[in-house]
């Protein structure tokens, strides 16, 4: 854009003001008209409602819902006040449209410049037909990506911004701020991060457990799954395919089904306790979800049950792709199985699977299903919004959907993002694949 403005003629400059002017001058009528129409749309929207929306966005509304005495009907009537949530949403959409307009402006200037260049070179600018053809050739990425990106912006990015911005408001059931709320800056962050106060202490304990859980869940799955894969790969094991099939079958059943079944089986009078009691091994039912320590270990075990076959599935292929020469030379050198595992198998696996480890760590921090469908976060202390097995993500669910503390919920969401970013940055930084990209090739 800068080179376009520096080297372009007056027409290029004017194209920033009147979009498509540069194209119209160079006889690209369709393109120019399209630009012009887009500008008319954006400007019309901005004047009609955009400015109003942006203005409202600064205060999030001031007029509360009022009761007004209606003399004719002799009743109180409710007069609608401002609805902050709508104002926030419309404001964000307006900002998005303005950004889109700025991008169009940039496109207009660029297109005017390139039209001018080809005019100078060939005495004519590419026709509309040629432009369309280019969309299937050198600009294919544009045609392929625009719809998916539009989808991501509309259903992921804008909602994310919408939700994140709630973290800076007092949108919450507290003080009945559900209809009309205000910007409060970083107050919610301060409240959440402070060490004293009930919210802060809950946050730090939930964060601590989330990290412990994510580490335990990721590495237990990874190591046990790999050991299982190695075990089945051992040359003396018969019926390899059958064993793999048995374990993989458990991944094939939808997770929410198996998790809900686990929850039923582990209830105080569920199948497992019944079985153990009938066999006379225990007298009292085991407190799977009622005791903090038990509950935490139970969810980790459940996660091993869910996750190990998956790791088995994914690592078997890689294990078989480890160059056999490495093992042979190790055998010649007289290395025992333990040494080969720690010196060859594990480093190779770690090298190849670091991206997988990061995704699985991320997945575990956001592992809603395993917690929500089994322990539901229990056991929970009285008066707290989070239980002892609640992760940040399930707590976020409870805060927003069950309790309507949207402001704090949004803060928790942002904190989850920050935690994840730090964790993945650290792993990338210290992992082998970052330092030595060609290591094993």
């Amino acid at each position: 854009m800068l080179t376009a403005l520096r080297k372009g003629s007056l027409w290029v400059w004017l194209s920033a003001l009147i979009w498509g002017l540069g194209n119209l001058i160079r006889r690209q009528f369709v393109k120019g008209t399209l630009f012009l129409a887009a500008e008319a749309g954006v400007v019309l929207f901005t004047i009609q409602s955009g400015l109003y929306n942006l203005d409202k966005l600064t205060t999030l509304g001031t007029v509360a819902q009022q009761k007004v005495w209606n003399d004719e009907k002799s009743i109180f009537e409710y007069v609608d006040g401002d609805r902050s949530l709508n104002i926030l949403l419309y404001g964000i959409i307006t900002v998005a449209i303005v950004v889109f307009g700025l991008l169009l402006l940039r496109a207009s200037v660029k297109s005017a410049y390139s039209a001018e260049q080809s005019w100078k070179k060939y005495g004519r600018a590419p026709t509309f037909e040629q432009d369309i053809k280019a969309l299937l050739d050198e600009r294919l990425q544009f045609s392929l990506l625009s719809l998916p990106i539009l989808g991501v912006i509309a259903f992921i990015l804008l909602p994310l911004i919408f939700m994140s911005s709630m973290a800076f408001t007092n949108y919450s059931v507290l003080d009945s701020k559900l209809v009309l709320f205000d910007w409060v800056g970083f107050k919610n962050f301060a409240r959440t991060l402070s060490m004293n106060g009930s919210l802060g202490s809950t946050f730090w304990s939930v964060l601590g457990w989330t990290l412990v859980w994510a580490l335990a869940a990721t590495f237990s799955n990874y190591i046990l799954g790999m050991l299982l894969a190695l075990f089945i790969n051992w040359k003396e094991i018969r019926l390899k395919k059958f064993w793999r099939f048995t374990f993989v079958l458990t991944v094939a059943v939808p997770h929410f089904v198996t998790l809900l079944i686990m929850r039923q089986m582990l209830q105080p009078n569920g199948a497992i306790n019944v079985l153990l009691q009938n066999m006379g091994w225990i007298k009292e039912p085991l407190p799977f979800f009622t005791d903090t320590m038990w509950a935490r270990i139970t969810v980790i075990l459940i996660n091993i049950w869910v996750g190990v076959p998956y790791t088995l599935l994914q690592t078997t292929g890689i294990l078989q792709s480890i160059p056999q020469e490495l093992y042979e030379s190790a055998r010649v050198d007289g290395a025992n199985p333990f040494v080969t595992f720690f010196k060859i198998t594990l480093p190779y696996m770690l090298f190849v699977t670091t991206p997988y480890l990061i995704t699985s760590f991320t997945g575990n921090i956001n592992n809603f299903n395993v917690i929500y469908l089994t322990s539901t976060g229990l056991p929970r202390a009285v008066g707290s919004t989070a239980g002892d097995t609640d992760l940040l993500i399930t707590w976020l669910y409870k805060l927003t959907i069950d309790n309507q503390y949207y402001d704090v919920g949004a803060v928790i969401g942002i904190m989850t993002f920050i935690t994840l970013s730090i964790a993945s940055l650290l792993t990338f930084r210290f992992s082998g694949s970052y330092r030595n990209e060609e290591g094993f090739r």
Partner: protein
Amino acid sequence: MSKQIKAKKSAWQKKPLHKRIGIILAHVVLALFAFLWLIPIFWVILTSFRATKGSYSSTFIPTAFSLDNYIKLFTDFSVFNFPQMLLNTLIVAAATCVLSTFFVISVAYTLSRLRFKSRKPLMNVAMIINLFPGFMSMIANYYIFKMLGWTNGPLLRLAMIAVYSGGAGLGYHIAKGFFDTIPIALDEAAMLDGCTKWNVLKKIIMPLSKPIIVFTLLNSFAGPFKDFMLAKILCGPNKDYFTVAVGMYQMLEREYIDQWFCSFAAAAVIISIPVASLFLTTQKYYSIGFSGSVKG
């Protein structure tokens, strides 16, 4: 034939005794683990045929068996309309699978085989968005759809399809890994012969990519059958639009569990069969796509 067996036997007999015991022990341990992993699945199959009602049973293996739980799912519509739920899920899944496969394949192909200025930045942005809990945008989506009035009536289906497939483009990694493994020389040769990039895509790469397209189609078709969280938030109390997952979760609510628990198990068996067979036919791609994506 008999010679081979003899040869095998002798190889087995050649091994020292302690090694033979070790090998047998290894198989026993493996069988034990396999059994441990299969218990819940056995249990749900057993429960789905249990004749006695109620969520709890005093024995692990039921005392009497019947098909009533399955029949109830398809005849008793007083609280849960299971066929309706199946239909709802099918409609959403069919639309989602077409849309999201288109999104995923376009993004994966573009990022894998085309080179342009904003390629790296786009991948970085995708990575950053993926670090946000997907749940956050989901809650926000719910409020947006509520304002639009899409959370009631038939538009609810549209909302579900939009949310399931809208962000699909972000999950391009497995498919990209596949495209990365196709030699770039193919494209170059075709383009030297005057092929446009679109024709390279249409005539050369797509015919080679049937497996990954099938994988993506099946995977995104199974999505609405497996997802629970999003459908639950969007549906709220709208029973007419429940997907199978939401409906089954409701069957375990306190007021229904006594009457519906065994039918829950039956429903679990019914939906597990198609989802499991889809998974088993596509399982090899989990490994291939994964090792492929590392190369990219």
